[in-house]
């Protein structure tokens, strides 16, 4: 039982209290989106997931501003520098004062292995700040800016909030830039799957018969191929001399090539079950033609379900891209994604020396979980009329 069960009294019956009537009538005239929102709102995990998802996409939107530097900047003299903790207040004679800083590095040499390592030097202080001027960039490729959300006040001395990699590149900046690629590849892949899925699933479900049979067999065939080898094969087929952007689109297409099948099945199933619904028959008996029936009755009935399954298939795309890139078959620098970053953490020696290289894995985890919770909530709310 849901909110939807709130019934009204008949004209003959007594009128309820005035306050009740007001609440009740707002439910009575609530459209499906309002009802869905009310239902979704009750789902705490999904709300949390939704908020985290929104934050992640907001990060993806403003990477240039949020990242302290660009991900490609190599500083060979900061190889595997450990993360520096940001202190917000500085101890002075008058007490604590707002003045963000980090502690600097000092180099230690391991006497046995004769290996240079960076350690945090509590004595040194590097001034940090919010909304600092730093490396110039083009915001969304439109206008020049050099304002960064957080960073070192001195452009000559870099700060590594999450440490550096083998080449002295800033992990935080790389991760923030990776957010854009990883999250957008999920979204883009899903949208491509969406078109293929809706088209083929819709055709399959609406016409039925031979067409349906054929499309279903194709779907079964595609789904029966082991995914990783298929991706690997397809990714290997991408020419190596392609520019990074084209590789990026190539990978998206490869991912959606498999992703559409699940969606097509959802759409087909909805079509088949809706076709036998009484209200669809009623529309036909009203004299509505097929196009009207589909657009006015069937599509609004399953659109919310489609959105939910789309959301639920984004994590799959993200994971697929991550795996491909991790295996070295997906994206390559200078494009950075979380998978590309995790590639650094492939061998045990680097992980032992620089465990912070695993942090991008955490980002994948958070994004995937958030999207899954969000999608689950959407799916539960997708049919507010469930009795």
């Amino acid at each position: 039982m849901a909110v939807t069960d709130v019934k009204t009294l008949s004209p003959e019956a007594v009128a309820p209290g005035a306050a009740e009537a007001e609440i009740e009538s707002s439910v009575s005239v609530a459209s499906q989106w309002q009802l869905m929102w009310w239902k979704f709102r009750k789902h705490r995990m999904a709300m949390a997931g939704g908020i985290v998802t929104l934050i992640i996409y907001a990060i993806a939107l403003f990477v240039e501003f949020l990242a302290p530097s660009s991900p490609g900047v190599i500083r060979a003299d900061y190889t595997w520098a450990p993360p520096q903790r940001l202190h917000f207040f500085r101890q002075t004679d008058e007490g604590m004062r707002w003045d963000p800083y980090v502690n600097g590095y000092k180099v230690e040499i391991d006497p046995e292995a004769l290996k240079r390592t960076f350690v945090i030097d509590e004595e040194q202080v590097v001034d940090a700040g919010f909304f600092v001027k730093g490396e110039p960039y083009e915001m969304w490729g439109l206008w020049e800016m050099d304002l960064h959300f957080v960073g070192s006040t001195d452009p000559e001395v870099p700060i590594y909030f999450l440490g550096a990699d083998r080449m002295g590149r800033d992990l935080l900046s790389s991760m923030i830039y990776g957010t854009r690629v990883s999250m957008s590849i999920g979204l883009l892949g899903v949208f491509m799957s969406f078109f293929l899925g809706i088209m083929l699933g819709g055709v399959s479900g609406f016409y039925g018969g031979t067409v349906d049979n054929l499309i279903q067999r194709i779907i079964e065939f595609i789904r029966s191929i082991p995914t990783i080898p298929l991706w690997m094969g397809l990714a290997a087929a991408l020419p190596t001399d392609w520019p990074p952007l084209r590789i990026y689109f190539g990978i998206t297409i490869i991912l959606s090539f498999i992703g559409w099948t699940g969606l097509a099945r959802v759409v087909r199933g909805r079509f088949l079950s809706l076709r036998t619904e009484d209200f669809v028959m009623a529309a036909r008996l009203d004299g509505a033609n097929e196009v009207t029936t589909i657009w006015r009755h069937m599509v609004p009935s399953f659109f919310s379900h489609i959105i939910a399954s789309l959301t639920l298939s984004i994590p799959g795309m993200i994971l697929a891209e991550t795996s491909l890139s991790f295996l070295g078959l997906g994206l390559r620098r200078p494009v950075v994604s979380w998978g590309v970053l995790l590639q650094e953490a492939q061998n045990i020696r680097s992980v032992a020396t620089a465990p912070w290289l695993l942090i991008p894995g955490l980002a994948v985890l958070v994004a995937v979980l958030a999207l899954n919770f969000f999608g689950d909530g959407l799916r539960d709310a997708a049919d507010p009329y469930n009795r």
Partner: protein
Amino acid sequence: MSAQLTNGSQHTTSKNNSATADNVLLDVRNLQKWFPISAGFFRRTVGHVKAVDDISFQVLQGETVGLVGESGCGKTTAGRCILRAYDLTGGQILFQDHDGEMVDLAPLTNNEMKPFRQQVRMIFQDPFNSLNPRMPVIDIVGDPLRINKVVAGKELEDRVASLLAKVGLRPEYMRRYPHAFSGGERQRIGIARALALDPRLVVADEAVSALDVSVRAQILNLIKDLQEEFDLTYLFVSHDLSVIEYICDRVVVMYVGKIVEVAETEELFAQPFHPYTEALLSAVPNPDPRNRQQKARIVLEGDVADPANPPSGCYFHPRCRYVQDQCSQETPELRQIAPGHFAACHFAEELTLAGVTASGELG
């Protein structure tokens, strides 16, 4: 509207129609609807479910005809064939158009059907599934008007308001969605939708079966009142014999896709000529505990025959308590036993079957 009907006239078969009186609104002839049973990888058709197998009956202007039978007897399929929700396997559906001509609806395409869809309307069984939950009442009731370009805009709103008032709902509720209404109210909305286009024939498919007992009487009364007000003709499909008796002028009894008996309601209930009708009547629980002792309930053996694989001869013979050798060999024709009373039984004249006496006891 009749101007669009130019090519409808070629289907007209009013001449060689001996039984046609002027007031026949619907004349169903040899209606057949078989559903294929497919099997195997290539979905070959391996047989047919003969849901409706060669039935003929007439509905006169202004009367209520009941189509009664147990589940699987084909009554719902027959109703939907008449609405042309299904394509027919065979037979004719002759419908009297406004100008008095009989038009066969069976071969019409979807486009050609459009003017007739306004004249033949349907009330659905399930008040929950038959209204699109994503549309407000004004769209549900107004859509037939809009689609058929009858009225639009403010006028449409007025029409919907008056329709709602007619079926006993407050017109102010037209912005509400179906979830705000109870089962009985939704059924009223469904009835308003059916009446929106001033239909002449309304097919009511188990219109009150899903409703609560106390609401059922309201809706039955409403259906009756509307008939008088709008000069409606009903084809009332139901499994509930007491409802059928209350609302119908004539009754068509079906069993496994075939008609077994047709008669005026009073005659059929008082003096059935087919053993199946007798059993059906005796199976209805009598809402008076004092009649419990006197009645001899006929309990039928076994289950309803499988319409994909019906028995030989008379379909009812395996369950019939008057069965004779002839029954399993020859299929009985529906024939007139008494004036206006048809039955499909070899021994209709010989058998003395029990009906329901006017006092409610079984005689």
